[in-house]
């Protein structure tokens, strides 16, 4: 708490006390005033009581006196007329001998008159009343009535301060007892002596009494107010005196305090300055240490006495830290320092730091650290002595650089080079490695052989010296590769010194040293002269084939031109076309091995054959429709045969095209869900007319769980129509039956047996089981010989050519089926017994 606060509190305390005093004083003055008021009121009341009581006693005395005399006679005046209530009294009115008229005034009458005087004189009112008054104007008011009732209960006096007509009155009432004399007038009312006949109330205005007592409430208040003012004034005056001296004392205290504060602040400032200097120093030191530690080189220093002084982090990584100073002659042993051979421990004189301390400027001294636990390191160290400004030696410092990795890489490189040389030397390919001057570093035996170098030692000799005939073009290629290019050629003529030309396929790469610099080039080459010749022959053969096809096409066109003139000529043309089919099959065999060529050839063939077929099919159609005129039955039959053959040829072309598309990977498989049942029904519907014509039974057995699968509907339909079509085609009696059911893939079952635990786990997951739909087409037809089963799915292999002539078909259907099934992810197989029937079965994955 500050001094100002303390002062404030001292002063406010005094103010508090002063306020408390004023309040206390006010309370005392007010209490006195209140007490005075109560006292005054009580006194007034006592005084009023005495006054009224004595007025009452006096009334009773006067009345008793009057009663005792039986009343008094008074002259009749206007104010005092004869009492009409005494008319029954004899001698109410008498006349004095002198003739004065007198009338009897009874006690009550007299008293009442006295009361009237009293009211006029003092303002006090007396009232004689009763519950049974003779005169109505004497009847009691409310207060009197209550008092009268109370008297009948035995109360002898009632007094209180009451408000009458806005003024304060002290009222007193006492009972009025019946006496002997009273009965003279009031016997008629039934009163007896000592009966309470009524009461007399005396009412005195308090104002007059107060006046008499000399007291006034307002004067009292004025006096007390004055008293209060004087007291309060004293308190206020005292307060100001005290607070003034308090303020001065506080002022003095404050001055002392601020002087103290000044002193404290100075001390604090100095302390802060000091700690700031310390902080800067600490940071500087930290910064230096951080710099020191962040250097990858190990840095170690010692003082002039050879006591190790400082190490950075890298040094600690190299070989830990000493717990206590180590004498210089133990450094080598303590830090596991070895000469570069990694075997000889260093002597004291070998240690770089020691040498530096001796004044030597150590530059790139190689050494090894071989700790018992950690892997060995190779370091190069450089160091020198440290001198103070006066030139006095104060220590030495050595920086060590870890070259372990570089060493290792260099060794690995040497090893690699050895391996590479060995590899090149023994490689079955022709490889030669040259340095930058195109001198042979190594060459494979194959290279020596290919280039007829025999056992000549060419290593170290220039390539251009060995092959002086090398043209300038090659020298340029070598130069480019030495500059970093990679060059190659698929076939390149190489004119030899003896006049021959070899064909070479080659590739040249630069090779790099560890530092990333080009060390020379590597030449891979292959003499392909023989292959080149073989290809040339093949090309000639292909050209011949194309020529053949063109020739045939030309023939077809020529033949077609004759069609309109002679239908028989058409027949023979169709025959020739059939021959062409056979020749095409031969051509296919020749074309084997040149797949790309075949695809392009087939596409062209398809197009070229369609053009003449357009005429053949078009015109036979027109003629058969009778558009060119009516035909006889024989003509229609023969022309129908020509048309069937032409359609057969078209089917053949389409199938060939299909096969070529499949083989060229041009067939797009579109997988969508479809109902397998409806596909089977479509296939059966397609062959139904032919089956009915031959009288074959055509039925299907589809298991109830066969339904929707995800595959290519068009292709599945194609497969099925082909198989069912074949079955009907090759069956003369009996039935053709299509069956379908779901099977679980056997291959996957076998796999889980092989893989033991792993597959035991995997068999838990049903996803690994591939469910398949299996569709089979069985017939009771001619069947297939066991030796023919293998070729069945190869193109152009309708078995037993003799029979094939009897059955329509291109010989490509099963081949297409086989390839399509494979593309859809399924398998196809056939079981057959010659002469009894066949059963083709294929499977498809459900999705």
């Amino acid at each position, binding site marked *: 708490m500050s001094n100002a606060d303390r002062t404030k509190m001292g002063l406010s305390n005094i103010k508090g006390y002063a306020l408390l005093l004023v309040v206390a004083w006010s309370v005392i003055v007010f209490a006195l005033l209140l007490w005075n008021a109560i006292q005054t009121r009580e006194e007034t009341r006592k005084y009023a009581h005495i006054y009224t009581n004595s007025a009452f006693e006096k009334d009773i005395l006067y009345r008793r006196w009057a009663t005792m005399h039986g009343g008094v006679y008074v002259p009749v005046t206007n104010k005092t007329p004869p009492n009409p209530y005494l008319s029954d009294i004899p001698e109410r009115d008498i006349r004095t001998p002198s003739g004065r008229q007198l009338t009897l005034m009874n006690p009550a009458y007299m008293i009442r008159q006295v009361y009237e005087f009293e009211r006029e004189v003092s303002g006090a009112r007396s009232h004689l009343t009763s519950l049974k008054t003779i005169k109505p104007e004497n009847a009691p008011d409310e207060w009197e009535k209550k008092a009268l009732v109370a008297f009948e209960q035995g109360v002898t006096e009632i007094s209180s301060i009451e408000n009458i007509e806005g003024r304060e009155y002290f009222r007193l009432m006492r009972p009025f007892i019946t006496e002997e004399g009273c009965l003279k007038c009031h016997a008629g009312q039934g009163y007896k002596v000592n009966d309470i006949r009524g009461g007399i109330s005396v009412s005195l205005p308090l104002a007059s009494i107060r006046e008499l007592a000399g007291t006034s409430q307002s004067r009292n208040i004025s006096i007390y107010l004055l008293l209060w003012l004087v007291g309060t004034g004293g308190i206020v005056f005292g307060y100001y005196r005290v607070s003034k001296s308090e303020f001065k004392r506080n002022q003095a205290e404050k001055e002392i305090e601020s002087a103290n504060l000044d002193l404290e602040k100075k001390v604090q400032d100095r302390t802060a300055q000091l700690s700031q200097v310390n902080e800067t120093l600490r940071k500087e030191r930290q910064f230096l240490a951080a710099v020191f530690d962040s250097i990858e080189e190990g840095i170690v220093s010692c003082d002039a006495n050879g006591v190790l002084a400082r190490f950075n982090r890298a040094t600690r990584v190299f070989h830990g830290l000493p717990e206590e100073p180590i004498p210089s002659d133990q450094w080598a042993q303590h830090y596991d320092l070895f000469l570069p051979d990694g075997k000889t421990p260093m002597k004291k004189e070998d240690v770089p730091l020691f040498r530096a301390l001796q004044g030597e400027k150590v530059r790139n001294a190689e050494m090894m650290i071989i700790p018992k636990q950690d892997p060995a390191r190779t370091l190069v160290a450089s160091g020198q002595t440290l001198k103070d400004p006066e030139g006095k030696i104060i220590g030495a410092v050595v920086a060590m650089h870890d070259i372990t990795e570089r060493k290792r890489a260099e060794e690995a490189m040497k090893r690699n080079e050895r391996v590479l040389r060995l590899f090149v030397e023994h490689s079955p390919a022709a490889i030669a490695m040259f340095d930058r001057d195109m001198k042979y570093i190594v060459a494979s035996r194959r290279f020596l052989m290919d280039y007829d170098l025999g056992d000549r030692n060419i290593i170290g000799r220039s390539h251009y010296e060995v092959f002086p005939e090398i043209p300038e073009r090659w020298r340029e290629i070598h130069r480019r590769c030495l500059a970093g290019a990679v060059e190659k050629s698929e076939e390149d003529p190489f004119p030899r010194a003896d006049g021959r030309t070899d064909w070479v396929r080659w590739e040249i790469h630069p090779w790099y040293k560890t530092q990333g610099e080009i060390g020379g080039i590597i030449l891979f080459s292959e003499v392909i002269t023989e292959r080149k010749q073989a290809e040339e022959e093949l090309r000639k053969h292909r050209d011949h084939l194309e020529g053949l096809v063109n020739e045939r096409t030309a023939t077809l066109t020529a033949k077609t031109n004759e069609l309109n003139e002679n239908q028989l000529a058409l027949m023979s043309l169709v025959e020739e076309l059939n021959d062409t089919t056979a020749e095409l099959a031969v051509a296919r065999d020749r074309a084997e091995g040149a797949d790309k060529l075949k695809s392009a050839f087939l596409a062209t063939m398809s197009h070229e054959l369609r053009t003449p*077929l357009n005429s053949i099919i078009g015109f036979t159609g027109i003629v058969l429709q009778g558009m060119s005129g009516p035909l006889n039955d024989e003509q229609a039959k023969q022309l129908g045969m020509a048309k069937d053959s032409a359609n057969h040829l078209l089917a053949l072309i389409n199938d060939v095209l299909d096969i070529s598309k499949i083989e060229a990977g041009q067939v797009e498989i579109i997988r969508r869900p479809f109902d397998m049942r409806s596909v089977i029904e479509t296939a059966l519907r397609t062959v139904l007319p032919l089956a009915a014509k031959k009288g074959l039974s055509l039925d299907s057995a589809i298991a109830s769980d066969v339904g929707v699968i995800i595959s290519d509907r068009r292709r599945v339909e194609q497969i099925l129509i082909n198989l069912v079509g074949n079955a009907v085609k090759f069956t003369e009696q009996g039935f053709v039956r299509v069956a379908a059911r779901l099977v679980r893939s056997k291959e996957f079952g076998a796999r889980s047996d092989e893989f033991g635990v792993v597959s035991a786990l995997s068999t838990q997951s049903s996803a690994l089981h591939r469910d398949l739909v299996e569709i089979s087409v069985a017939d009771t037809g001619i069947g297939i010989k066991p030796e023919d089963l293998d070729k069945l799915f190869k193109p152009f292999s309708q078995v037993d050519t003799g029979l094939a002539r009897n059955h329509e078909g291109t010989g490509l259907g099963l081949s297409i089926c086989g390839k399509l099934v494979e593309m859809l992810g399924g398998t196809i197989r056939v079981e057959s017994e010659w002469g009894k029937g066949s059963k083709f079965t294929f499977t498809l994955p459900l999705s």
Partner: protein
Amino acid sequence: MKKILVIEDNEQNLYLVTFILEKNGYEVIPARDGREGIDLASKVRPALILLDIQLPVMDGYAVARELRKNPALDDIPIVAVTSYAMTGDRERALEAGCTGYIEKPINPETFIRDIEQYL
């Protein structure tokens, strides 16, 4: 009589198509090459153009593109009649501006039905 422009260089094929069309009550305007076809198309405004794809001078794709450039001929259907049956041949024809595609050899029984769907 509805006019059909047939652009076809092969005499036999032209004869075949002309024969079938005329038998079915169409008037055939023959054109031997693409250039002639384009000229005749704007001159006679045929109801349909049958277009061979393998044509001398300019092929059918080029003819279709050229025809489609002329806004006056915009609404005439062009049907390619071609012996190109390899994958993508149909798409190439449609891309060049053809409305339909009929593969050769044509089927004389269905040919009229096939072209009439474009008329």
